[in-house]
């Protein structure tokens, strides 16, 4: 049936969405490629699992803690968080709607039966290896990646390419962490947080919960109580981490929640680039993902944190999909430190996520670059917070939202300048694009300025900087619209192209998008 040529003015079931002419065809194509029917990571892995009893109680927490053989202080820490969580209410201010979550209907811990960590590649269950292979993680170089002796020579080819060390988290546990030995030579600690609790308890104790406190918000508090695994990274003074680090999160078991906790510390003058990727099987039930990421950058340190989030978004009618309720925060604790968040968000049924920077050190810098694409019935409420506390702190926010299908995409951001943050600077730019007339795009930027010498700009084309740049481009014969595209979009594209995206095909295709014809 030619549904769009029919006489009815608007047919709700019509599949072909009329897209206005000014929108770039490649953008529409790129967004379409991300529809749930094209979700390639939706398979399940059949493997025997050890599960905690269903539901959440003090016993569940004791079970998790015991399964991981944790020290007493950590159990106490978890129980304290749980006690606090019981008194908290689920937040409702975000522009997302979802059925009430039954926190007793989930399994809070699921680990492959064969054990959590494997001494050599041979011990990693075949199913898990195959899973990662299928997801495009280069596991044929698995021997190298897993750091097994004798394998180094066979992968000389691989070494010529930039290498990435991977921490693979499968449901609630880290199953493999690669390149550990080589990283150790540089003094870099890269391991699962469960191991770090045993091997570097002092470091963990010193930093855990100092950026995102136990009682920070409902989901972070839940995470503090039940977090299962995650990655721990420590880059010592003056070390530039010799390779990209990454964590690949895979949710597999049914009715489980994933609650990982990542802690990255860059000591003075250290540098690290870290990438996380996430996928999950297609299931009809909603699954909960409530992670916490804490970053600490000391004097002159820099952390670049990139996310390619592609959790199962649910089918086109909104059935199933991941609830992605994540708390990510970086603390620029030292002077001249820098934290940069880059995110490509294409998955999850509901996203509630605001990677933030606390710019505490003088001259510290925070950056947030985001592309969020929603399709089907996805809902994303995402953005950032830049809290300027130190003098001459700078932040930059670039956010691009693309909504298609019947989805809603919200940018929510806060720029807050403390009265002592002399000469703080912020630049914010957010664009949204609607593909079709059944979706929504929303922008909610909050600005709180308490410092007279701070300079904050939100999409202000009147600033001197952009005027000069525009003039420069225009006097060379570039049309105004093209010039703006060059200056703004070109910049973002540039940033994305520098992302370590070896295994993120979906992100590559996003580079095709243009924000021409944006609504606001």
């Amino acid at each position: 049936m030619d549904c769009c040529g029919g006489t009815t003015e608007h047919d709700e079931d019509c599949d072909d969405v009329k897209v206005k002419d000014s929108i770039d065809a490649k953008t529409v194509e790129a967004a379409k490629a991300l529809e749930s029917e094209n979700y390639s990571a939706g398979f399940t892995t059949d493997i025997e699992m050890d599960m905690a009893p269903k539901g959440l109680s003090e016993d569940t927490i004791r079970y998790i803690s015991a399964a991981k053989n944790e020290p007493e202080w950590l159990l106490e820490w978890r129980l304290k968080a749980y006690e606090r969580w019981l008194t908290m209410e689920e937040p409702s201010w975000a522009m997302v709607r979802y059925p009430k979550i039954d926190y007793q209907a989930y399994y809070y811990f699921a680990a492959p039966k064969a054990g959590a960590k494997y001494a050599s590649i041979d011990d990693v269950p075949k199913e898990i290896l195959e899973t990662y292979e299928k997801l495009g993680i280069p596991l044929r170089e698995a021997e190298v990646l897993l750091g097994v002796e004798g394998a180094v020579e066979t992968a000389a080819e691989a070494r010529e390419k930039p290498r990435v060390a991977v921490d693979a988290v499968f449901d609630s546990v880290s199953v493999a962490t690669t390149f550990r030995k080589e990283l150790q030579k540089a003094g870099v600690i890269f391991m699962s947080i469960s191991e770090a609790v045993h091997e570097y308890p002092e470091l963990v104790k010193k930093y855990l919960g100092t950026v995102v406190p136990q009682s920070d918000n409902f989901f972070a508090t839940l995470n503090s109580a039940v977090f299962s695994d995650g990655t721990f990274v420590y880059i010592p003074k003056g070390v530039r981490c010799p390779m990209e680090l990454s964590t690949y999160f895979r949710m597999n078991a049914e009715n489980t929640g994933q609650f990982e906790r990542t802690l990255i510390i860059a000591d003075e003058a250290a540098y690290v680039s870290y990438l996380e990727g996430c996928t999950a099987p297609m299931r009809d039930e909603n699954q909960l993902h409530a992670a916490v990421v804490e970053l600490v950058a000391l004097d002159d340190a820099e952390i670049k944190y990139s996310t390619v989030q592609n959790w199962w978004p649910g089918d086109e009618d909104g059935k199933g999909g991941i609830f992605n309720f994540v708390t990510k925060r970086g603390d620029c604790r030292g002077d001249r430190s820098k934290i940069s968040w880059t995110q490509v968000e294409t998955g999850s049924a509901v996203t509630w996520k605001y990677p933030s920077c606390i710019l505490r050190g003088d001259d510290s810098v925070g950056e947030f670059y985001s592309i969020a694409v929603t399709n089907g019935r996805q809902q994303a409420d995402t953005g950032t917070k830049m809290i300027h506390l130190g003098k001459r702190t700078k932040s930059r926010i670039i956010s691009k939202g693309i909504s298609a299908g019947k989805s809603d995409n919200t940018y929510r951001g806060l720029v807050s300048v403390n009265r002592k943050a002399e000469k703080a600077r912020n630049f914010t730019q957010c664009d949204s694009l609607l593909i079709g007339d059944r979706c929504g795009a929303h922008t909610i930027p909050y600005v709180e300025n308490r410092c007279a010498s701070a300079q904050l700009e939100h999409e202000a084309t009147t600033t001197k900087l952009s005027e000069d740049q525009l003039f420069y481009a225009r006097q060379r014969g570039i049309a105004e619209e093209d010039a703006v595209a060059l200056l703004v979009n070109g910049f973002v594209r540039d940033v994305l192209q520098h992302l370590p995206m070896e295994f993120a095909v979906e992100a590559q295709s996003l580079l095709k998008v243009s924000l021409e014809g944006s609504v606001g």
Partner: protein
Amino acid sequence: MTTALRDFIKNPTTAELELVARYAMQPEDGRRERAFLAFAETGLPHRRMEAWKWSDFKAALKALETPASASANDPVPHDGALVFRFAPTGFEQPKTLPEGVRILTQPTTQALSGAEDVPLGALAAALAGGGARPSTMVIEITSSDLPRLHFVFDGAGEASFARIIFLVRSGVSLTMTESYLGGAGFTAALLEFNLEDAARLNRTIYQRGGTDEALAVTGLINLAANSAAVQTTLAFGAKVARMETRAVHQGSGAKLTLNAAYLSGKGLHADITTHVRHGAPGCVTRQLTKGAVLDGGTGVFQGKFFVPRKTGQHTDADMQHQALLLEDGAVVFAKPELEIYADDVECAHGNTCGALDDAQMFYLRQRGIPETQARAMLTEAFIAEALSTADDSVRDVLLAEAQNWLSS
């Protein structure tokens, strides 16, 4: 009834109990009750409510008390205007009215739709009236050939409430001004404008208040097809002052201009809040808000453009907020928000916040202009743009008031 209401507001403050008592003295009226219940649902708005997070009336207004400061003088000329005066206990209006303006002072309250969205507007609807004051003043405008209508809110007292409804008939233009001059501990005014097809409105608001006064002015503007409204506000703030406008484009081709300037000094808080619903195709909104804040002052700007699916197509809307923090200790909060469900629209928003340009200051100073004067000149030039839409009869007055503030 009163007891039930007392129970309805959770942990009522002294001020809220006094408001309940005032309501109990009003004649019984279903519409009035509905308006009061809409207010009672939240009580005085407070910082835990998203729309009021930066303007906390519950905290600012502990009790209804006559403030120490007297009303300010009205700079807006009264000569040649039809002047209406609302005081906490009194009310005055012109003895005779020219043809083309008709006033219906109704004994009963008019229904207020969407009262839950404007709690202090609902409160004004519930408490307006008593004594000589009309419960609801309905003004019908049928001629464009009228003198300016001027509404003054002043006089000493604990609290003052007013509700005015304008019906501007098809093709007719109305020019009106309002002066909020302080004097009452709490003032809540609700003004509703219904513009019929191709009607025109030019509304200019001047506001001044003391450091122990609370003020909430709620304006509701409905625009029919091809109508146009221009609103210009100059606000100096009070302990807490909220100038809120909610406009709805109901017919295609409507055009709305919402300009405002706030100048906020020590102990004063000026809040400019707007919500525009683009409920018909092809409507245009232009919004410019400028602010300058001194040590100890607070400026708030909250703007929202709502563009519904289908009916909002071809909306052309632009929202700009620019604020200057002139001294350390100044505070500015802003939230320029867009909620868009239609794909073929253009909604721009911009927001800047900062100090005066050092280079410009240097330029003036090296020409021998003292710092204070240079600062005033630059700030005036910055603010003036937002006031340029005011009616000819008051534009210079507003500029002069801004100048006085800047150079004092």
